C-alpha cells in the first residue's frame, strides 16, 4: 500500500499550527463547553438546591398566623361569600350602557349587560366590560387638590365659592366644559349652579362629534336631533364610512339589532354593503365591501341617490362619477327593500348627512328603520360653541372654567391652544378623577367618584331613563361632581336626595314602590313622552349635492382618523385590559400605528416587524409604525385616536401618538377625514409591533373556516360544510367519518354535558367576550414585550382570517398573502373541551383530566409545567405562566390588577390566581357552573338552563355564543343544535343542525365546542 503523504487540515489554524490550536488540540471538547463559563458550577447548583429545599421545608412547617375579621356590624343584605348584583348605568361622556354589577363583600368585580334594558338589551362592549378595572385605577386622585397640593374639601369649597362669587359679582364669564351629559338630574344641578352664577354657560363637546348629523336633520326636518335607528328591521343596510358596529352612534344597540338580521331565522338575513377607506369591524362583516377614499363618501351617496331618484321619478342631483359597480347593486337592492332598508354615513358633514336623509326618505325608511320621534342623546356636543369658548379664553374673556369630567387639552383638536389660553383664566377647576392633561393645568381639582361609586340617572333616548347606583362606598376621598355643583351653588350637597326629588315627577302613583322598581330594574321607560309626529323631508338635496361636489377633491394621500373599539377615545387610557385587547382587525396590542395598503407600503409584515413613517398634516409631523393592512383603500392611510396620553397614569402614558391635534374643523363641524395636504414618508426605522396573530389567512383549510353563500344555504342547510373521511380497513368502503374511529372507550355523561356553540354569522368580532373572560377568570395582562414573545395569557382569543381566492396559488407563501380587499371572518377560539382530549393523554402527572360533565379540567396545583399538553393541543389554546404575574414589579405597569393593593380588589375570589410554571386555559367558567348547580341544589329543584352561562356568552351582545347543558332537551343549546337524543347522555349527540361543525374535525378529538357556518348574503 502506498503511503499517503497528503496532509489534511481541519482549518487554517491547524495549518499554521498556532499556539492556541496546539493547546486545545488534545481536549475532546472546546473549553467553553466543558468548563462552564458561569461562576457557579453544577456542583454548586446542587449544593445550593439541596440547601434551599431543606430550608424551604423547614420554613414551610411554620404556617403564618392568618386572621379572620368579621364585619363589626354586618349589613343585612351582604353575606361574605355570596355575590350581590345591582343594576346600574355605565356612563362615559355620551357612551351609555345599562349594566348589572356583581359585587363580592362590597367590591364590584364584574360588569355585565342588563337584560331588562330595552335600549341595550343586555349587551355590553369591551370598554364597558373593562370599566370595572378603572374603578381600581391607582392613578385616581386620593382627595381634593388645591394649586397642586393635597387639600380638604372644606378648604377648596370655601376658596372656590368665594372666588366664584367674586367673579359673578364682576359679571365675569364662567364656563362649564363637559362632554355630552346624558343625565337629566346632572343637567338640572348645572342649571341650579347657573341660577346662582348667572354668567355661567355650559359648553358640551364630543371627542368624536356627530353635530353634523343634528344640523343635517335640522335642514331636512326642521328639528336638530339625532334619530334612533333600528337595524333589526333592515333587510338591506348600506354603510358609508360608518363603523356602526364598533364606534359610530350607539354601537351596543346597533350590534344587537344587526345580529338579529344575521341569525338566519326563517333562512333570511340582511344584506350589508359597506363603502369605506379603513377596514373597520363593520366593513369586515359586510357582504359587499368597497374601498373608497374618504373624499369619495359624498359622491358614493349622491350616485346612490341618483339611481334611486330615477326609479322614484324625482330629479337627479350633481354627482361626481365613481366607478364602482357595487353602487348600482346597492341602490337596486335598496329599492327592492323599500321601507325595510337603512343607509347610514359616518361623515360629520351636514351636506353629506342631508343626502343620506334624502336617500332614506326616498326609500320610505322614516317610521320603520329610522325613528325621528325618539331622538338619542348620545352626542350633543357642538364644536362651534367649544371653538367660541376657546377663542374667548384666549382673548381673556373667560374668568372661570370648570372642566366637568372633560379633558379637552388632550382630546380636542385645539387642545394646545386651550392649554395656552388657560393661563389667562383666573379660576380653573376640574372634576376629573385623575390628574389628566387638563386637570394638571387647573387651580383646584375636585375629583369625581367613579360611576360605580355614584348615584346618577341617564336618558339615552327620549322617554328612556336609567338609574345608576353606587356599588361601593367611595374608595378615596372623592365626591360626586354633581354634589360639588350643588354645594358651590349653596344647595344641599346630597345628590341622592336631589336625584330622588327629580324622579318624583316621573312617578304616577306612590313614589316608594315606583322608585324601588326603577332602582331594581335599573331602567324606566315612559312611552307617553314619545309623541307621534309626522316629519316631512324639506332638505334641499340639490344644493347639498353641489356643495359636496365642489368641497371634496381627491388628494394623493388621504387620512382617515378613526376610533378603535378597544381604547376608544382614550378616556380609559390607563386601563390595561383595553390596551392588551387586540384590535379586532389588526390584532395589534399596546400600540398606535398607521394602517396602509400593501400597494402603498410596498412591503408586507414579516413576524410583525415593520417600518415607521412620518405623516405630515398641515405642518404637524407625527412618526408612527406602519401596519400593512389588507382592505385599506389604496391612497389612504388610517390612524387611531385615543393614544399618546401623557397624564393618564402608569399603564397608559406614552403609548403611541396623540392624533387629536390633526383633526380639522370644516365649516363649523369636526372632521376625521383629511383629504388635503397629507404627505407620508416611509423611514427605514424598524419597529416591532405586538400582534397576537401574525398569520392572516387560514391557508385554504376548509376544516377551520366553513362558509357558504345565502343562496347555497337556502338550497342546502349544510352548504359549505366540509366532511372529512379517514381511510381504514375497518369499513367496506375503506373510509369512515373521523368520529367513528377512536382508540378510547368513550365517556358517558349521566348528569350534565356542557357544550358551547358559536354562530360565526352572528359574531362580529367586537371582542367584548375577551375582556369579560379576562375579568371573570383573573387572567393577567402581560405587556407588549411578552406579547411579542407570544406569551399572551388570554383564554379566549378571536382569530381573524382574511379569505382570498386560493385557486391559482402554487405555494404556501402565496396562500398566506391576503387579497387587496379580502373577505373577513372572525372565529372565537377557546379550549374546545375535547372528549378525546390530546392534552389529557400526554400529561405525565394527570394535571389535566376529563370530568363526568364533559369538561376538560386543568388542575394548577398538580401541574409541573412540562408543557406537553400545550404542544399537543391542536387548537393552541393553552397558556403557560412563564412568570409570576402577581406581586411582581416587572408586571406592575401592564398588570396592576395583581400588583397594586387597590387593583387586587377586582380579582374574582372564586378563581385561583395562578402562579409561575403552571398551565392554564378556558375552564368553561367552571366556577359559574358550580355555583349555578349549587343554587339549584339549595332550592331542591332541577337545574334550569338560565342558571348557568359563561362570561363570554353573557357578554355577547350579538348572542353569538350559546352555552348550556346538551343533556337537557329544553336548553337553548339543545334547541339551537337540534339535539335529538339529549337525555341519553352520549358523548356524541345526534344533532340536526347542519350548520354545526367542529374545527379540525378530521383529527377526531370530538370537541364540545361547535361552530355554525358563516353565511354571506352575496351572489
Amino acid at each position, binding site marked *: 500500500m502506498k503511503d499517503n503523504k497528503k496532509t489534511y487540515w481541519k482549518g487554517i489554524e491547524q495549518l499554521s499550527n498556532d499556539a492556541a490550536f496546539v493547546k486545545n488540540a488534545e481536549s475532546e471538547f472546546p473549553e467553553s463547553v466543558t468548563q462552564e463559563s458561569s461562576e457557579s458550577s453544577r456542583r454548586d447548583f446542587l449544593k445550593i438546591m439541596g440547601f434551599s429545599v431543606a430550608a424551604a421545608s423547614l420554613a414551610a412547617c411554620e*404556617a403564618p398566623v392568618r386572621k*379572620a375579621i368579621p364585619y363589626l356590624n354586618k349589613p343585612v343584605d351582604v353575606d361574605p361569600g355570596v355575590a350581590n348584583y345591582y343594576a346600574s348605568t355605565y356612563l362615559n361622556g355620551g357612551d351609555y350602557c345599562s349594566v348589572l354589577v356583581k359585587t363580592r363583600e362590597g367590591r364590584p368585580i364584574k360588569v355585565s349587560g342588563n337584560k331588562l334594558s330595552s335600549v341595550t338589551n343586555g349587551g355590553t362592549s369591551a370598554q364597558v366590560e373593562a370599566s370595572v378595572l378603572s374603578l381600581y385605577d391607582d392613578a385616581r386622585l386620593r382627595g381634593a387638590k388645591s394649586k397642586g397640593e393635597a387639600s380638604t374639601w372644606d378648604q377648596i369649597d370655601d376658596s372656590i365659592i368665594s372666588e366664584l362669587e367674586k367673579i359673578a359679582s364682576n359679571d365675569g364669564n364662567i364656563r362649564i366644559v363637559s362632554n355630552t351629559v346624558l343625565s337629566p338630574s346632572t343637567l338640572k344641578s348645572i342649571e341650579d349652579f347657573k341660577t346662582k352664577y348667572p354668567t355661567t354657560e355650559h359648553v358640551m363637546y364630543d371627542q368624536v362629534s356627530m353635530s353634523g348629523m343634528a344640523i343635517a336633520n335640522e335642514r331636512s326636518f326642521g328639528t336638530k336631533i339625532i334619530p334612533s335607528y333600528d337595524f333589526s328591521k333592515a333587510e338591506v343596510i348600506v354603510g358609508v364610512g360608518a363603523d356602526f358596529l364598533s364606534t359610530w352612534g350607539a354601537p351596543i344597540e346597533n350590534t344587537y339589532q344587526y345580529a338579529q338580521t344575521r341569525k338566519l331565522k326563517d333562512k333570511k338575513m340582511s344584506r350589508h354593503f359597506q363603502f369605506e377607506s379603513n377596514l373597520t369591524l363593520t366593513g369586515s362583516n359586510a357582504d359587499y365591501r368597497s374601498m373608497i377614499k374618504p373624499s369619495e363618501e359624498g359622491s358614493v351617496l349622491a350616485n346612490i341617490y341618483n339611481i334611486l331618484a330615477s326609479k322614484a321619478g324625482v330629479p337627479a342631483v350633481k354627482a361626481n362619477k365613481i366607478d364602482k359597480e357595487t353602487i348600482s347593486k346597492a341602490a337596486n337592492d335598496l329599492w327592492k327593500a323599500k321601507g325595510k332598508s337603512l343607509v347610514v354615513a359616518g361623515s360629520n358633514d351636514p351636506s353629506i348627512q342631508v343626502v343620506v336623509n334624502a336617500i332614506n326618505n326616498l326609500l320610505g325608511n322614516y317610521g320603520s328603520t329610522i325613528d325621528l320621534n325618539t331622538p338619542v342623546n348620545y352626542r350633543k356636543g357642538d364644536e362651534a360653541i367649544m371653538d367660541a369658548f376657546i377663542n374667548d379664553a384666549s382673548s381673556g374673556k373667560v374668568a372661570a372654567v370648570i372642566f366637568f369630567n372633560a379633558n379637552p387639552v388632550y382630546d380636542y383638536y385645539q387642545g394646545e391652544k386651550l392649554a395656552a389660553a388657560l393661563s389667562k383664566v383666573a379660576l380653573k377647576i376640574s372634576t376629573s378623577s385623575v390628574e389628566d392633561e387638563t386637570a394638571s393645568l387647573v387651580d383646584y381639582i375636585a375629583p369625581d367618584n367613579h360611576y360605580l361609586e355614584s348615584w346618577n340617572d341617564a336618558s339615552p333616548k327620549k322617554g328612556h331613563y336609567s338609574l345608576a347606583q353606587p356599588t361601593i362606598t367611595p374608595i378615596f376621598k372623592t365626591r360626586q361632581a354633581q354634589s360639588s355643583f350643588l354645594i358651590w351653588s349653596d344647595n344641599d350637597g346630597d345628590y341622592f336626595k336631589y336625584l330622588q326629588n327629580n324622579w318624583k315627577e316621573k312617578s304616577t302613583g306612590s313614589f316608594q314602590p315606583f322608585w324601588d322598581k326603577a332602582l331594581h330594574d335599573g331602567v324606566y321607560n315612559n312611552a307617553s313622552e314619545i309623541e307621534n309626529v309626522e316629519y316631512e323631508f324639506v332638505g334641499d338635496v340639490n344644493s347639498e349635492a353641489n356643495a359636496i361636489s365642489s368641497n371634496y377633491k381627491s388628494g394623493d394621500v388621504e387620512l382617515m382618523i378613526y376610533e378603535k373599539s378597544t381604547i376608544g377615545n382614550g378616556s380609559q387610557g390607563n386601563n390595561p385590559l383595553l390596551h392588551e385587547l387586540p384590535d379586532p382587525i389588526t390584532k395589534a396590542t399596546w400600540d398606535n400605528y398607521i394602517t396602509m395598503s400593501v400597494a402603498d407600503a410596498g412591503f408586507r409584515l414579516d413576524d410583525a416587524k415593520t417600518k415607521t413613517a412620518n405623516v405630515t398634516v398641515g405642518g404637524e409631523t407625527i412618526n408612527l409604525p406602519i401596519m400593512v393592512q389588507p382592505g385599506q383603500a389604496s391612497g389612504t392611510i388610517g390612524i387611531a385616536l385615543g393614544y399618546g396620553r401623557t397624564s393618564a397614569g402608569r399603564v397608559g402614558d406614552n403609548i403611541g401618538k396623540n392624533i387629536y391635534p390633526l383633526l380639522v374643523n370644516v365649516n363649523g363641524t369636526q372632521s376625521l377625514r383629511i383629504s388635503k395636504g397629507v404627505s407620508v414618508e416611509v423611514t427605514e426605522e424598524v419597529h416591532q409591533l405586538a400582534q397576537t396573530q401574525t398569520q392572516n389567512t387560514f391557508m385554504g383549510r376548509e376544516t377551520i373556516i366553513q362558509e357558504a353563500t345565502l343562496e347555497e344555504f337556502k338550497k342546502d342547510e349544510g352548504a359549505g360544510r366540509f366532511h372529512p373521511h379517514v381511510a381504514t380497513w375497518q369499513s367496506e368502503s375503506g373510509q369512515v367519518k373521523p368520529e367513528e374511529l377512536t382508540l378510547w372507550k368513550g365517556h358517558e355523561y349521566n348528569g350534565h354535558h356542557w357544550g358551547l356553540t358559536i354562530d360565526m354569522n352572528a359574531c362580529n368580532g367586537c371582542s367584548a367576550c375577551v375582556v369579560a373572560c379576562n375579568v371573570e377568570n383573573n387572567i393577567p395582562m402581560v405587556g407588549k414585550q411578552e406579547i411579542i414573545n407570544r406569551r399572551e395569557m388570554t383564554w379566549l382569543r378571536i382569530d381573524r382570517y382574511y379569505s382570498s381566492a386560493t385557486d391559482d396559488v402554487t405555494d404556501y407563501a402565496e396562500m398566506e398573502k391576503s387579497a387587496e380587499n379580502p373577505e373577513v371572518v372572525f372565529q372565537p377560539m377557546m379550549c374546545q373541551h375535547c372528549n378525546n382530549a390530546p392534552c389529557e393523554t400526554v400529561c405525565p402527572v394527570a394535571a389535566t383530566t376529563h*370530568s363526568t360533565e364533559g369538561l376538560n379540567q386543568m388542575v394548577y396545583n398538580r401541574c409541573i409545567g412540562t408543557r406537553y399538553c400545550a404542544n399537543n393541543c391542536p387548537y393552541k389554546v393553552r397558556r403557560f405562566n412563564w412568570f409570576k404575574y402577581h406581586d411582581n414589579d416587572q408586571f406592575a405597569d401592564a398588570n396592576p390588577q395583581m400588583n397594586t393593593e387597590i387593583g387586587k380588589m377586582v380579582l374574582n375570589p372564586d378563581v385561583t390566581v395562578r402562579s409561575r410554571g403552571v398551565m392554564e386555559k378556558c375552564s368553561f367558567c367552571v366556577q359559574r357552573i358550580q355555583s349555578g348547580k349549587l343554587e339549584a341544589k*339549595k332550592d331542591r329543584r332541577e337545574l334550569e338552563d338560565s342558571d348557568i352561562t359563561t362570561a363570554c356568552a353573557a357578554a355577547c351582545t350579538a348572542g353569538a355564543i350559546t352555552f348550556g347543558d346538551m343533556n337537557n332537551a329544553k336548553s337553548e343549546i339543545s334547541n339551537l343544535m337540534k339535539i335529538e337524543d339529549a337525555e341519553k347522555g352520549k358523548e356524541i349527540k345526534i344533532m340536526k343542525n347542519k350548520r354545526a361543525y367542529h374545527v379540525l374535525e378530521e383529527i377526531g378529538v370530538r370537541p364540545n365546542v361547535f361552530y355554525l357556518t358563516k353565511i354571506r348574503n352575496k351572489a
Partner: protein
Amino acid sequence: MTRKSLTARILKTFAFTALLAFNFAGVFAQSIPTDDANISNGKSLFDANCKACHSVENKLVGPALKNVYDRTPSVEWIFSFVRNSQKVIKGGDEYAVALYNEYNKTEMTSFDSFSDEEILDILSFIKNETDNPAVVEVAVADSGDASQNNEAVSSTYLNVIVVGLIVVLALIFVVLILITTVLTKYVNNKDGLDDIDKEVVNQSFSLGATLTSKPFMFLAVFLFTAIVFKVVINGLFSVGVQMGYQPTQPIAFSHQIHAGQYEIDCNYCHTGVMKSKNANIPSPNICMNCHSAITKGTNTGEDEIKKIYAAIENDQPIEWVRIHNLPDLSYFNHSQHVNVGGVECQTCHGPIEEMDVVKQQSLLTMGWCVDCHRNTELNTKDNKYYDKLVELHKEDSDKALTVEDNGGLECAKCHY
C-alpha cells in the same frame, strides 16, 4: 265488718282523691299534648326560635323554661306573653311585671305569628324535657365505651399470644445454650482432637468482629437510611397540615358554654353556613343580641365580654385567628355540605360543643376530603336536582349512590 268498711272507706277516699288527681292531670293532658309528633314539632320550633335565649334546664338571657306551665298564671297567659310580651307587661300583669324587672327589663321578642297549637307543641316539648331529663347522651357514651371494650378484648388477646410466644422462644434459647455448653464440654474432654477441630469447638463469639462485619454494617446502614427516609417523607406529607392547631383567640370565647351548655344552634351565629361558601364568624352585632343583657360570663366574668363592647365602641373589628386554613387553590363551600349534603358541623369540626378553645380536629388534607367523598352517600332525599341521577344510578348499580358517583372526586369540583 267495721274493719272491712273502714278499709272500704279508705279505699273510696283514696280512689276519689286519685280520681281527682287524675282529673286534674287530665286538664293538662288536654291542653299540653304528649304525642311524639307534637313533641318533635315543638323541638324544631324551640330550636329555631327560642333556643337563642332560653334553655329548659338553665337560665340564659331569659328564664329556664322547666315547669313553665306550672309556675305561670295560665296557659292562656303564656299564649299572650309569647305573642306580645310588652302588651302583657304594659297591661300591668303582676307576674309579667315581676319577671320583666327580674330580667333587667329585657324585652322578649314577639312571636305573633305563632298559633295556639304551635305554642302548645313547644310546651309539650318543654314538658317532655322536664319530665324526662336528657339521658340520650349517656346512652351514646355507653355505646361508645362498649365498642372500645370490644377492641380492648381483641388486643389483649393478641398481647397474650405475643407474650406466650416470646416466653417459648426464650425457653428454647436457654435450652439450646445448655445443650451447646454440655456438648462443648463433652467434645473437649474427648481425646484425639486435632488443632483445627479444637479451634472450631472453642470458637468464641466476638462482639467487635460482628459489629465491624460487612453484612452487619450493610444492614445497619440500610435500616438507618430507610428510617430516615420514611421520617422525612412523613414529615414532608405533614407540611402545612395543622391538625390540632389551637391558637389563643383575642376573646376567650367558649364553644363549650355557648354550643354545649346553652345549646345555641350553630346557625344562630354562623349565619352563612346554609347559604354561603363561608360559615361566617359572627359580627359583634350578633353577639349583642344576647350580650346586651348578659354581661357576666360563666368562666371569665366580665372582662372578656367587655371586649365585645370595646370593639363596638372603638369601631374596631375583632381580629380572630383563623384556625381552619384551606389553601387558596381549593374551593370549599359550606352550604354545599351543610345545606345540600346535610353534613353535621361535627363531622369535620369535631365535638365543637365540648371545646373550650377551638382547635382543628380534622386533617383537612386532600386525602381526608377524598376519603369522605368516597364513602359518603349522596343526600338526594327530597331534592329534585338529583332525581334523574338517582334513577340512572338505580338502573346501573344496586350499591348506594356516593358523592364519588356524582363526580365528587373530580379535580375541577374543588380546584379552579
